[in-house]
């Protein structure tokens, strides 16, 4: 700080040279306030002393809140989740998407986040499908049809970036409504709209369209990039979706990834049904056959549809010849963790530890020591079922990625309970 202060009276020429690259022409000491916000990484403790924020604890607290809200929501409705989703992603590429408030522009930032979202979505929902729609020049245009391959969507989107004209909410909804009406009744219909514009330019009454979507049980969610708009809020309220406005790029990422795990199923939205599926076997190596998806002769490992014996290259897919849904058992298993979530771990109060022998010295999962260098215990958590202790990092890993409690898995009797 004192360094910056001293530099101010130095002659102006030198200063100008330094600041040439910066278009806003800030003094160096101003930059320290505008960009770095160093005071935000400090907090006051009980006795009024300043100390750096414990980032790890903060991060962990944030994650706990997320976990708790999730588990309370699922406990209320006895875990029913829409595992088979048909989702249309509507991306606003009107003039407003060219705004530069997010660097380099809203459009580029959105495209980047959409790409991450699509990959995450298919990772979590292997049986679901996505379609892309863009709004441009007042009309909605279907970029890709519903499909299960992340690469083709991302490629189509990256090739079509460029913004112009007005945005039209009604046109987008009409198009999506028409497309989603064709899908089977057991699927969950969803729309996520990434809306940059502050207005909508519609050919008719948008309210009627909203009612139509409501009737067809399409869950519409909107993520705004500029400010809250009444019509979007109304749309989400009516159809049971989420409405949120992104503050910055990191917030936008959080908001959009929130839509990746399957939402709690709303009882009458999708009708339970049995779906006929095939489990194709991998063809033997070294066999030449003509595949039905690319229509060319291929050599070696493909999958054979059990009903019509046609060859397909990738799973999951729909057989081109007989229309049977083809999956492999790992695809189904990938979704099971949504149905059997790990119970949240309990916090262990650090004061509760005088009886050292009761508490193990290291984390059950990763063997990391649970004692600080000064032999002071660090914060840790415990599983309510198997009573094992875990460090905070393992806690996050177990709930976000592994979906298994190592303690419960290494106990024989917990098996019979499951």
């Amino acid at each position, binding site marked *: 700080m004192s360094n910056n202060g001293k530099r101010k009276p130095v002659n102006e020429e030198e200063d100008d040279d330094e600041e040439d690259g910066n278009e806003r022409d800030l003094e160096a000491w101003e930059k320290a306030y505008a960009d770095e916000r160093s005071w935000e990484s400090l907090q006051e403790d009980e006795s009024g002393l300043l100390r750096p924020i414990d980032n790890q604890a903060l991060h962990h607290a944030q994650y706990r809140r997320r976990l708790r809200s999730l588990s309370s929501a699922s406990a209320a409705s006895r875990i029913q989740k829409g595992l088979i989703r048909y989702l249309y992603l509507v991306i606003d590429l009107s003039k407003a998407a060219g705004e530069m408030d997010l660097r380099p522009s809203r459009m580029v930032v959105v495209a980047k986040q959409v790409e991450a979202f699509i990959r995450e979505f298919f990772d979590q929902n292997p049986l679901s499908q996505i379609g892309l729609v863009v709004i441009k020049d007042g009309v909605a245009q279907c970029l890709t049809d519903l499909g299960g391959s992340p690469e083709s969507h991302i490629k189509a989107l990256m090739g079509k970036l460029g913004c112009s004209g007005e945005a039209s909410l009604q046109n987008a909804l009409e198009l999506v409504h028409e497309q989603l009406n064709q899908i089977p009744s057991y699927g969950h219909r969803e729309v996520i709209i990434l809306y940059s514009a502050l207005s909508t330019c519609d050919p008719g009454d948008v309210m009627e369209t909203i009612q139509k979507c409501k009737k067809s049980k399409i869950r519409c969610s909107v993520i705004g990039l500029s400010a809250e708009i009444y019509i979007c809020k109304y749309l989400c309220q009516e159809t049971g979706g989420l409405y949120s406005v992104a503050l910055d790029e990191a917030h936008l990422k959080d908001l959009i990834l929130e839509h990746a795990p399957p939402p709690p199923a709303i009882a009458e939205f999708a009708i339970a049904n049995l779906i006929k599926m095939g489990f194709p076997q991998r063809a033997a190596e070294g066999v030449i056959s003509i595949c039905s998806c690319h229509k060319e002769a291929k050599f070696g490992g493909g999958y054979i549809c059990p009903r019509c014996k046609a060859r397909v290259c990738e799973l999951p897919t729909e057989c081109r010849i007989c229309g049977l849904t083809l999956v492999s058992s790992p695809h189904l298993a990938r979704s099971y963790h949504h149905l059997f979530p790990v119970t949240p771990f309990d916090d262990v109060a650090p004061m509760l530890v005088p009886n050292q022998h009761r508490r193990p010295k290291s984390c059950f999962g990763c063997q990391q020591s649970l004692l600080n260098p000064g032999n002071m215990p660090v914060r840790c958590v415990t599983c309510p079922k198997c009573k094992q202790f875990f460090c905070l990092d393992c806690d996050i890993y177990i709930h976000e990625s592994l979906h298994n409690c190592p303690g419960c*898995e*290494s106990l024989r009797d917990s098996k019979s309970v499951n």
Partner: protein
Amino acid sequence: MVLIDTNPLFWSSTAAPLSFSKFLSQVLSFVNSILLLNQLNQVMVIATGLNSCDYIYDSLSGPTTPTFETLLQKLEDFVVKDEELNKDDSVDGIGSSLLSGSLSMALCYIQRVFRSGSLHPHPRILCMHGSQDGSGQYVAIMNSIFSAQRSMVPIDSCVIGSQHSAFLQQASYITGGVYLKPQQPDGLFQYLTTVFATDLHSRSYLHLPKPVGVDFRASCFCHKNTIDMGYICSVCLSIFCKHHKKCSTCGSAFGQPQTNVSMSDQKKKAP
């Protein structure tokens, strides 16, 4: 990261192709040879028991080369503890070890290695497994496999038992590891050093045993038959071989909108 199966039921049965002590001595020389290959190599040994799992050797904290005594001491403690747990349990073992538990522990440890080091480690897991698959662990093992896949950790497997392990076949296939069932278990050390000792980079230059076909077919929940074509419940993804009126897992009735009746049914079933 080596997981050893210490299932006493398997090792004492006649199905075991070689004695446990012989097996241990071969694995130990393998562990030592990995540590000697590069001074940055680290080995972690986890024992997979019938009733529990535990770390038995860590090259970071323990002696630099594992001697037979230290490992054996830990292992004996573990086996005794494992047996004690068995006595409390009135149900005697079905004969499958807790692979899911040791896999989860291994993955937790690997996450810690990722967090701590800037060394860009290439961790991998080697499962030495003898006993049968426990069908109750299916979901947990699949979860571990997908988690390993996401963090790019290959799971190698070496099956010593008489049967192939469908779980480990899938694990190695999905994560890009090597699945091997030695034809002559007496020469285990030879198999281990030729196939599993090399690092991931040089592995691509080796002519490794060709993977046998992996069976990806599912088994139905009603008869446990393996099926080609079946019906999937759209709510809970249970697999059935015939058309049912009602899902036996989640209780939703098919072909009509879910009503409150089915919801209350389900609640009765839950406890």
